[in-house]
């Protein structure tokens, strides 16, 4: 399942990455190398095999619905690239 520059551009958009057009071919080649290696998976006989998400088949534990973490809003905003009035600041999204 080879991918080309067009697919790279689509996937890059999904991942919110910018790919420079001059790097696109080289990047496609590298990704195809990786996907060619990954394609060995097609040899496996996986009929009737359930996918494994957790090696110990453990399910997520539940805890009581109570507040356990302190509010560190000010600390979190201190390291933000831009903040104002207790909020993260981003470019205008609604005109």
């Amino acid at each position, binding site marked *: 399942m080879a991918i080309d520059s067009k697919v790279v551009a689509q*996937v890059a958009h*999904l*991942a*919110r990455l910018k790919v420079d057009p001059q790097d696109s071919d080289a990047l496609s080649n590298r990704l195809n190398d990786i*996907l060619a290696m990954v394609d060995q998976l097609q040899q496996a006989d996986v009929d009737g095999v359930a996918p494994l998400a957790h090696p110990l088949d453990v399910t997520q534990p539940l805890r009581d619905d109570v507040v356990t973490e302190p509010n560190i809003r000010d600390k979190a905003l201190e390291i933000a690239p831009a903040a104002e009035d207790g909020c993260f600041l*981003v470019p205008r999204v609604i005109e």
Partner: protein
Amino acid sequence: MHTKTLTELKAGLANRDFSSRELTEHFLARIQQYDGDLNSFVTVTDTQALAQADAADAAIAAGKAGLLTGLPIAHKDIFCTEGVRTSCGSKMLDNFIAPYTATVVEKMAAEGAVMLGKTNMDEFAMGSSNETSYYGPVKNPWDLERVPGGSSGGAAACLGARLAPGATGTDTGGSIRQPAALNNITGLKPTYGRVSRWGMIAFASSLDQAGPMAQSAEDCALMLQAMAGHDHRDSTSLNEKVGDYLGALKDDISGLTIGIPEEFFPDTLDGAIADNSRDAIRELEKLGAKVVSVSLPSIKLSVPAYYVIAPAEASANLSRFDGVRFGHRCDDPQDLEDLYKRSRSEGFGDEVKRRILVGAYALSAGYYDAYYRRAQQVRRLIRDDFARAFEKVDVLMGPTAPETAFKLGAKKDDPVSMYMADVFTIGVNLAGLPALSMPTGFINGLPTGTQIIGNYFREGQILNVAHKYQQATDWHKQAPAFGGAQ
């Protein structure tokens, strides 16, 4: 002092042969003198280290020493440390001062450990050579023209050069064990969920696990004793009783059954690598272990399965780096999408971008079944192979890495050949098993390592086997000529 193990240093502190301040100053001076050549540290926290050392000396004087009181430890720069930059080897986090401290760091500090600084690593732990770090490659102290392995390459190199007596690492596909092998040190990846991942920057959440790295198995046992345990802040942390790892070192290993997976000794393997591991296994036979042959038929698919699962999880985990809340933000964003795209593209290096793209592709509509679902099915086959083997044996052994440290730049432009550096270590992560790498001899002056894989929660047994081997041999005591490490 720097040639001593943590266990020896702990005894020296207890005997008042030296103070923690003297010990800490000694290692800080060594880092200052030699790390310019090695580049194993991203940040050295000398002021905090000396304050912690003074507190440790006071605790020792008051008879209140913990497991690690006064012992200098280097933390991989993947663990969040409040007030100290936590870069994860990335430009993305070059300006990130963590607002909280990782559980692992907190637990070790609570036992009195002194933090020397934060070690260099492959960017977001994605790499097997430490060449993807934003802070430049780490050099191997056994040959400065060679890589230290990765991703915990800074940790392994600083230990090899005796710039620190103990270090933390993380292992998603071999990132503790492979650099341990390449630098002649001992490193353990515990059972998935044994050590809390809270505050450890996520790469592939179903595979990531933190563990100890040091000169000996005994030292790893000491460190793991402090690191392991349930943490309610990590929902994948397992609520199992922590073993007595130091106590387990004394166990007799006669009657132990070692399984040798034939897949770990393929015909294509370098004969000298195979010989060193076979010699190590023979040494354990002399100590009373039995050896049987086993097979893990699906393990040949572990690298392809990993390179779907790990990038898929990484593409989701790394979506948090968006230039909005913390980390790198591009200058003058035109709009929100421009802010996301440019911040991420400027902040991430090439290998990280490749893995995000592979992951996003594998998870995208139309490809999910062919890649992600299939990889998860193969993951079960691999886990079941190990489970069948452990019905017959106590531990499995084989080489940790297929080759000794390679030259800097040798695989930099060939990701797939780089990925093969972890061919013997990745299966363990997919199965969630604990495994240790220990030094087992040299080839042309470069270290090799042998892996001991145990069943779930059998860290004590693995450490026991490695400790018995290290009591009978002295490979782990060999140090490089670099930096007066010998």
